[in-house]
């Protein structure tokens, strides 16, 4: 069970009748003390590190606060400011482009390679390692450094293009038209971790389904769309939701590639990077808190839409 299916199945635990509920309460009473003792560290974390700050940031979003003087209440001014902040709108556009292009590309590639690898290939372990490795390194500053070199004017990418006779004078990182795309490419490069999840899912599909389809003479593509895709849909859904949430929070690569500026001309100004600049560059903590809440609302809404849409395409066979 993934995080998501757990969440949607959570009501199953509920007792059905009053009698059940009483019995459950009796049984539940048994471990109350130990239960809460074991849970204590997590509960402290939940309230001190998560829920407390969550409420505090909601409050701060209605204030002006620069860390030096106590916060002053300014009502919805931060939110009104967001309506007119052109750089914020640009940051939203950049981030949405990144998510809408990068996430599906990465997942399609992950799925395609996983399906290919699942066909009883020799060297599966080798290929899996090679494809998985970049996703374990991809979040590091070192890889962002490499990307900066690779897509510079005389970087590796242009050098290779020149080998093939192209003129290749574009600085991909320094041209506002392309800078974002190099970071999207970096995201696609890390398709290994969803691929590993797909591979695990593919192995759960009973072989008899394919055997039956083969006996019926179903062509390969048919077998993929009628067996593999439906049975894998919960995992596609899982990857989609988590990758979208993760992609909205991307920070390191844009920060390093643009040297913290989000440039050239704000073309790599990710939402989180702009939030960082406002909050920790300018110490506009109130505005940063408001931005953070907008992010939660956006991510929450997208996740809700995803859950709603999943009714129409995600297939649970249990």
């Amino acid at each position, binding site marked *: 069970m993934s995080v998501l299916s757990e969440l949607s199945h959570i009501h199953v635990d509920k007792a059905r009748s009053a009698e059940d509920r009483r019995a459950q309460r009796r049984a539940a009473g048994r471990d109350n003390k130990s239960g809460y003792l074991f*849970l204590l560290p997590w509960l402290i974390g939940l309230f001190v590190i998560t829920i407390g700050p969550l409420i505090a940031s909601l409050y701060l979003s209605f204030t002006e606060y620069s860390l030096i003087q106590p916060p002053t209440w300014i009502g919805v001014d931060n939110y009104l400011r967001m309506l007119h902040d052109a750089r914020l709108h640009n940051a939203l556009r950049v981030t949405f482009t990144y998510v809408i292009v990068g996430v599906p590309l990465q997942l399609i590639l992950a799925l395609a390679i996983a399906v290919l690898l699942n*066909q009883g290939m020799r060297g599966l372990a080798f290929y899996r390692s*090679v494809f998985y490795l970049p996703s374990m390194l991809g979040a590091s500053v070192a890889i962002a450094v490499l990307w900066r070199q690779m897509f510079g004017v005389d970087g590796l990418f242009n*050098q290779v293009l020149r080998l093939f006779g192209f003129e290749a004078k574009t600085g991909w990182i320094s041209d506002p038209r392309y800078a974002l795309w190099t970071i999207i490419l970096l995201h696609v490069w890390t398709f290994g971790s969803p691929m590993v999840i797909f591979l695990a899912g*593919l192995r759960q599909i009973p072989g008899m389904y394919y055997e039956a389809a083969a006996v019926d003479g179903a062509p390969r593509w048919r077998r993929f769309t009628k067996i593999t895709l439906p049975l894998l849909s919960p995992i596609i859904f899982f990857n989609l939701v988590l990758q979208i949430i993760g992609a909205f*929070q991307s920070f390191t690569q844009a920060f390093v590639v643009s040297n913290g500026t989000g440039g050239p001309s704000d073309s790599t100004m990710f939402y989180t990077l702009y939030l960082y600049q406002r909050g920790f560059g300018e110490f506009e903590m109130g505005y940063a808190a408001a931005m953070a809440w907008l992010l939660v609302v956006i991510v929450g809404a997208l*996740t809700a839409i995803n859950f709603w849409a999943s009714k129409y395409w995600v297939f649970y066979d249990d």
Partner: protein
Amino acid sequence: MTDLTARTEFEAPPAFDPSGGKVTATPYHRTRGMVRSVVKHLLLLAASLVMIYPLVWMLVSSLRPTDVIFRTPGLWLNDLYVKNYTEGWNALAQPFGHYMINSAIVVIGAIAGNLLSCSLAAYAFARLRFRLKTLWFSIMLVTIMLPFQVVVVPQYILFNQLGWVDTFIPLVLPKFVATDAFFVFLMVQFIRGIPRELDEAARIDGCNHWQIFTRMMIPLMIPALATTAIFTFIWTWSDFFTPLIYLTSPESYTVPVALRSFLDSTSGSNWGAMFAMSIISLVPLFLAFLFGQRFLVKGIATTGGK
């Protein structure tokens, strides 16, 4: 998916061949199958090359003078330009080893914190029955998906008021209160795969929950603990945002922040040394991946399944 309990058998049984291995009996089919297989391997090898080439090239380039780096897309090395490493190592206020030690301290603290706090919470969620458990469990699942930016500003203010900015405490302490809820979930999944009869037998023998947890669960949970440790290692080692906001003085920098300040200070002129230090910073990640891959694959399969 609770097949994590098969602890010794990490490789799943060979998957059924959907390409129809059983109906390719005729010579025509066999040839076609072979061509298909060769094409597939060529495709995958080409993809592997594209994926890995930049990494290998960076490794090779870290042994070249900067001007050669910018003219040589190939991998042939005429001689080893080790100067990149000695220069890079001493390019910042502290030798690079200093930042590696800082990172190591943070990583070890984070691993210890996650192992301890997440396993406690996971045992409660998976095995104990207590009031409001369903509610807490749902909240835990939601926090996995909560963007951390929404809590980062007040957290910063809190740690700032406690005087903990520019210490490792804000980087390590949250791990001791199970804020990486993803691992709680991973361990819950794992414990669910351990037969309950074992607990019940221990209960009958008079063990209390603490004894069951420490003497029985912990040893049985070692694969899940290993997965947690390795993921924590990789994520904490490359974490950039948290040290960026909390570590203000260069002496306390961790490796990612040090690398980035190096990039800043040379403004991209000494790429050889940059590459050399980048490679050094990747080595621990690579080793963790190399030796921990089976745990990573297994762990990711447990939490990502349907």
